[in-house]
């Protein structure tokens, strides 16, 4: 056989290499080689951490004082020196290179010169824009008319402001701010009123744009606006040439700093006249114009950049680590998507916050960047700026507004050094709460020595879909306009100069916050992004912006209640409650006799209960803001679809699993109560995924249709009929029953096996006699039919593995030697029951654990990886997500849990490389029941590093399994893990795109359909004979009759248990052709077996009697060599699976015989 296309092999060795890291986006490449000193040691395998050998001489030489100091410092400040070094590396990575700085400086110089040469123009009316021939004005001119004159003139000054001169500018997306001062002859002090100043500012910017447009020094020229504020347009410039995206120059037009007195722009003053804004002349009788705090702070903000830069520079000069600390904060904010858009907590605010901490002596000037960063997070976590604002002003002048003034006008208060400007004017309470939440999470994670705080804090991006349990989007932002009307927000709308999105947002948020109440921890929203548009087109309308996204962090304790209990009917708060909920609020009488207002949501299953927030949100938005449910795209249970057990009831299996567990508990009780056993039972333990809520297709009690079966004559049992569809698959639920240790047990492996069989017979007899359960004892187990479920009881003797391990050496010495047989038995009778009960406990803590496991396993199955990642390993991976969620919180919805599961696996692609798990160099430790201490962690890690080569590719450590990783010992191989990782990255990409982008087709099943084009042979099965085909990802429309209906009956006849032709077929295939090919199958109802030839088997071997299975001989020059007999093998595929196989399709376009 020869491959036609080499690249398509999944199994090929070329995939074992880690993907080479891409080049920088900004083009400044750095050598990817390891430093010289290490290169020799790592020559064999560059990506692997090896145990380090340092000579004793080096370790014990006399330390220098500096070294001693450094060692002591790292020991006391950081958990380990690793963190310190990681921080340093990160800072190096984001710092601007000298090369880049030169580029910036020269570009700024050129642009400054250009700007100075702006020609003067004649004086025109402000509303007259005919003098602009090539560009549009970056301003939405509503209302159209304004008074005033305007003309162009070269700027009074051009100066750098913001992060670049301060030295806190970081890569990538380097943005350099350039302030252009509008000459005072262009503007007039009266211009503060009615947007006249803002319009002139926009015109001035347009004038500059027109001038720059013709220049060759400028690459692209676009408009944007500062933090989404349409009153503050800015001009974005990139240098010409190829590296356009790496550097952006932002031109801000500002008035001279003494243009207006700050006191005129007090938040209580009104600077927009209602008559002008509405165009209706008659002023509202009896009232002065409403204050316009937002507009005022916008205008005032333009006066202060210079002053702020001065202030921050002074602080920076005092404190050496200031720059680095700001850089760290900026990275932290960026990973949380908090640094851009309207109402963001950007780099400027971060600098100001640090300056506040330094000037108020909350931190000392001598602290390191790491300490400053930590203190800043701590301050954010512990201070509520929505209640107690802070101010940087030392001695505010008498005219400055007080903090309470600010609080009444704005949601979040952080006053600048002048005492007049609120730096957080456009931030919503929810955004600040989100920052607080993130900060407190970060501080908490950082204190936990068992985890890699650095990764969690600074390296892991937290996009909305992966962070929040439920996400919803408001599309059709035009509806927000009507919301403003409904919510009576006219004056606010005027204040925000018509930006209805920003205007309505705070009120909608507080409405939802009230309605959702205790159900959620955090209500977060994406910040409306800064629009960008080319200078030649008009500014985009408010409604054309991308939809707003909201994220809910659910509180699992209150999630399941379907009742919103309000105040008593006669209490004064009842009216408020009724107002909030409208006609959904009803008077209800409760069992304790109280009569209260209440709202009842409809949800019968856990799955639906999780979606109650959706009902609440769409109800509230419809009622109070006129936003129809069609505008809300709620993404909370999209993935539930693939694990729904029964279509009618719409449950995701929690209820079914609970029934199984209840039935098992009953069985266990009955086993305990059995009398007349030769030895007593010491424990009854479940050892099946269904007993920890993680079975993908949980067993459902069934009633049998006897007509569709044959009978076994001697034992009352049913048999499958030949020529009929395969009967429904009845999962045997494994129960391990340990018998008391006693001297009566023989000390011999064969004898123990016989005794166990005798126990099975005895148990069957007792269960049959006392409880009338149909039983079938066999040498290895005992099947019990109970409540429409089949339990498989297996008797175990705790010393049996020990007996299996004992070998007597020829000289009579009793040796203990580990062997696979003993390990398998131990796994079966000790570790699996323990894992089952531990994970069952986890399910009690985190109600959606089971659902996430089932999604994860469904995905693994559907992508044909079930044979490589066993169920227990998959459950452990999911348990890891719940026990070590950093930097997230434990998932409270299956959807987010599954997305994080997919994200945990892949380090393959560049996009998400930063946070994924490094299987090669680190063990994944799942601290079940928090049994492991810090010392244990180190021990596991050291043992792992010491014997990495011999350990499984995917190492999962648990408290009971610290050195072996027993669940992943067999599989996956390096190649398969690589493949899993690649597919996971792809699935994640597809799913996240679907969840965030509403224009994409809505079919989450796409991620559950395997790409079959990489396989060499496809064996299609007859759906009729695949017993689980009804539960497949894409189930058939007309399921064949299986002879089983829902509903349980007691007693009766033993059904066909554990009869799955497909798995029997697969076993035969693997046993016969395991040397030649790999077989992949989706055990949850797949109808295709995918076969991949093993390339190694197809290179001709010399004739050897030991390995001749399925091979044929070719003789050339008196030498016999053998290759697999492909045609006969293909024929055997259909022979072995006669009746089951529909057709065997060799995909010969990929290979030839």
């Amino acid at each position, binding site marked *: 056989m020869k491959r036609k296309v080499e690249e398509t092999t999944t199994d090929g060795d070329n995939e074992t290499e880690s993907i080479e890291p891409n080049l920088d986006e900004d083009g400044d490449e750095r050598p990817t080689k390891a430093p010289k000193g290490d290169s020799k040691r790592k020559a064999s395998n560059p990506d692997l951490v090896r145990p380090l050998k340092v000579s004793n001489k080096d370790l014990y030489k006399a330390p220098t004082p500096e070294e001693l100091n450094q060692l002591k410092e790292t020991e006391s400040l950081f958990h380990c020196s690793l963190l310190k070094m*990681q921080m340093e590396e990160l800072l190096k990575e984001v710092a601007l290179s000298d090369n880049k700085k030169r580029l910036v400086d020269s570009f700024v110089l050129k642009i400054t010169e250009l700007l100075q040469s702006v020609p003067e123009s004649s004086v025109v009316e402000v509303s007259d824009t005919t003098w602009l021939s090539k560009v549009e004005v970056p301003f939405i001119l509503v209302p159209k008319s304004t008074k005033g004159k305007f003309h162009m003139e070269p700027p009074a000054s051009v100066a750098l402001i913001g992060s670049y001169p301060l030295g806190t500018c970081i890569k990538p997306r380097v943005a350099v701010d350039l302030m252009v001062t509008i000459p005072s002859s262009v503007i007039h002090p009266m211009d503060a009123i009615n947007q006249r100043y803002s319009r002139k500012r926009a015109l001035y910017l347009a004038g500059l744009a027109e001038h720059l447009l013709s220049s060759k020094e400028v690459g692209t020229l676009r408009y944007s606006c500062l933090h989404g504020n349409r009153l503050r347009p800015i001009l974005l410039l990139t240098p010409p040439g190829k590296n356009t995206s790496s550097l952006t120059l932002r031109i801000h037009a500002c008035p001279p700093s003494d243009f207006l007195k700050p006191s005129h722009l007090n938040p209580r003053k009104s600077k927009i006249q209602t008559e002008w804004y509405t165009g209706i002349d008659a002023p509202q009788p009896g009232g002065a114009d409403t204050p316009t705090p937002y507009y005022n702070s916008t205008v005032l903000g333009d006066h202060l950049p210079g002053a702020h830069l001065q202030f921050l520079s002074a602080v920076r000069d005092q404190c050496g680590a200031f720059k680095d600390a700001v850089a760290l904060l900026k990275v932290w904010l960026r990973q949380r998507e908090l640094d851009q858009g309207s109402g963001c907590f950007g780099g400027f605010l971060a600098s100001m916050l640090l300056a506040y901490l330094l000037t108020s002596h909350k931190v000392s000037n001598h602290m390191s960047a790491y300490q400053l960063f930590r203190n800043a997070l701590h301050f954010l976590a512990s201070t509520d700026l929505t209640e107690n604002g802070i101010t940087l002003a030392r001695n505010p002048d008498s005219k400055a507004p007080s903090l309470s003034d600010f609080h009444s006008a704005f949601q979040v208060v952080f006053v600048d050094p002048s005492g007049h400007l609120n730096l957080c004017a456009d931030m919503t309470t929810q955004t600040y709460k989100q920052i607080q939440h993130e900060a407190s999470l970060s501080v908490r994670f950082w204190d936990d020595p068992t985890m890699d705080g650095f990764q969690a804090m600074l390296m892991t991006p937290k996009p909305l879909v992966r962070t929040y349990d439920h996400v919803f989007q408001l599309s059709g932002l035009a509806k927000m306009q009507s919301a403003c009307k409904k919510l009576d927000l006219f004056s606010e709308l005027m204040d925000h100069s018509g930006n209805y999105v920003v205007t309505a947002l705070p009120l909608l948020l507080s409405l939802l916050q009230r309605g959702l109440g205790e159900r959620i921890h955090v209500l977060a929203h994406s910040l409306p992004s800064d629009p960008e548009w080319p200078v030649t087109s008009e500014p985009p309308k408010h409604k054309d912006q991308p939809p707003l996204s909201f994220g809910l962090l659910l509180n699992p304790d209150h999630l399941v209640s379907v009742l919103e209990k309000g105040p008593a009917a006669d209490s004064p708060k009842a009216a408020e409650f009724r107002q909030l909920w409208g006609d959904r609020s009803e008077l209800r009488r409760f069992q304790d006799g109280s009569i209260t207002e209440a709202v009842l949501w409809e949800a019968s299953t856990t799955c639906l209960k999780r979606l109650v927030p959706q009902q609440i949100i769409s109800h509230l938005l419809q009622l109070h803001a006129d936003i129809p449910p069609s505008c809300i795209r709620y993404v909370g249970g999209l993935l539930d679809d693939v694990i729904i057990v029964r279509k009618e009831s719409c449950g995701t299996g929690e209820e079914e699993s609970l029934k199984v567990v209840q039935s098992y508990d009953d069985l266990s009780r009955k086993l305990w109560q059995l009398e007349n056993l030769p030895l007593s039972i010491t424990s009854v333990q479940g050892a099946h995924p269904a007993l920890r809520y993680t079975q993908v297709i949980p067993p459902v009690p069934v009633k049998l249709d006897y007509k569709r079966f044959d009978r076994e004559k001697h034992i009352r049992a049913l048999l499958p009929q030949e020529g009929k569809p395969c009967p429904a698959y009845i999962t045997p639920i494994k129960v391990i029953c340990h018998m008391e240790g006693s001297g009566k047990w023989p000390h011999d492996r064969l004898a123990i096996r016989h005794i166990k069989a005798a126990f099975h017979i005895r148990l069957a007899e007792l269960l049959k006699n006392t409880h009338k359960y149909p039983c079938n*004892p066999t040498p290895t187990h005992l099947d019990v039919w109970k409540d429409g479920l089949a339990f498989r009881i297996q008797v175990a003797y705790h010393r049996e593995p020990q007996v299996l391990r004992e070998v007597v050496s020829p000289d009579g010495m009793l040796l203990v030697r580990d062997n696979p047989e003993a390990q398998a038995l131990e796994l079966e009778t000790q570790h699996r029951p323990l894992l089952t009960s531990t994970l069952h406990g986890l399910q009690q803590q985190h109600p959606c654990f089971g659902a996430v496991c089932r999604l994860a396993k469904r995905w693994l199955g559907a992508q044909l990886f079930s044979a490589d990642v066993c169920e227990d390993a998959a459950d452990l991976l999911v348990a890891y997500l719940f026990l070590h969620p950093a930097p997230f919180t434990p998932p409270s919805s299956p959807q987010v849990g599954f997305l994080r599961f997919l994200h945990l696996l892949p380090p393959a692609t560049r996009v998400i490389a930063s946070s994924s798990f490094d299987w090669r160099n680190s063990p994944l430790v799942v601290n079940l029941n928090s049994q492991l201490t810090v010392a244990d962690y180190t021990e596991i890690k050291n043992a792992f590093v010491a014997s990495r080569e011999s350990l499984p590719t995917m190492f999962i450590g648990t408290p009971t399994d610290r050195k072996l990783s027993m669940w992943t010992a067999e599989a996956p191989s390096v190649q398969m893990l690589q493949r899993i990782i690649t597919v996971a990255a792809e699935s994640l990409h597809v799913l996240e795109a679907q969840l965030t982008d509403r224009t994409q087709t809505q079919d989450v099943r796409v991620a559950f359909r395997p790409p079959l084009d990489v396989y060499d042979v496809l064996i299609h099965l007859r759906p009729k004979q695949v017993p689980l085909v009804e539960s497949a990802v894409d189930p058939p429309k007309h399921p064949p009759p299986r002879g089983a209906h829902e509903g349980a009956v007691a007693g009766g006849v033993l059904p066909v248990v554990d009869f799955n032709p497909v798995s029997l077929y697969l076993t035969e295939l693997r046993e016969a052709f395991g040397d030649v090919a790999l077989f992949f199958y989706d055990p949850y109802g797949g109808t295709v077996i995918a076969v991949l030839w093993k390339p190694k088997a197809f290179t001709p071997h010399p004739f050897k009697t030991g390995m001749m299975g399925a091979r044929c001989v070719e003789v050339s020059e008196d030498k016999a060599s053998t290759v697999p007999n492909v045609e006969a093998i293909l024929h055997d595929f259909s022979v072995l699976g006669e009746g089951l196989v529909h057709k065997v399709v060799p995909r010969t376009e990929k290979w030839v015989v």
Partner: protein
Amino acid sequence: MAVSKKKHASQPCVIPGGFTVLDLKCTKNSPAAHQLFVKEHKVRLEKTASRPLDRTLFVLNIPPYCTEDVISRLFSQFGPIQSVELKDKPGNPEPTEQKLSKYFTLTQKQGFSVGYIVYSKPSGVSAAKAHPQNVPLIVSTENHPVKTGLQKWIHQYSQSFVQPDTLQQAVDSFMNDYDRRKEEEAERKKKEAEQQEEDEEGWVKVTKGAKGAKARPHSEVADKRALQKEGKKTKRKELLNFYSWQHRQSQRDHIAELRKKFEEDKQKIALLRAQRKFRPY
């Protein structure tokens, strides 16, 4: 018989190594055939009576659906067969320690196997070796259908049921047997112990023992435990930080440990840097 007629028409196919290639088809109409490789059984050092050298045919590459019955039917055309033995891999027949009832034997792997066919006469071997390749052996014929696939699995499933009584009998007979053996062994031990005792005249007969065993049974675990105990004892007696040199030493150790950690971390960082793991986004 059609086979014998064609025999003269074509030659047997013998490949280097001395094996004759026989084609084997599942049914008459099968599009592809497996190649069986047969040769007389010739192993120098085998001393088992079950495979007499002159009469045993060694067969390689027998497909999983060929049971011993099928093989014996297929190869009986070359002469009367005494026994057929199918194995996973070529090699000596395993010594069967004791007879287990069929319920307790472990299931065989259903892969490709090798066979040892013992003919009643040596002529059977040579007849098989002379069989031409282009006349394939047919596994499943109308008279002797071979069950595969669903049919086979359903059959297997119905066969898997055991009457509890029969199972109990099997268990009982084995356990009785086991108890008897245990008793015999105990008896033997007792006798050995008796031999070691003084006789009337005060003489002790010293023997090497059955397998050179010591008088008391010992195990690896016990030996290890004893060693550990010893080690603990010495450790307990040791004094820590008692002398000033000890104190100095422990301080030096601490610094060395910090240094070692530092070096390790440096290595990790270098590695991560090489993988460009420090780009936050």
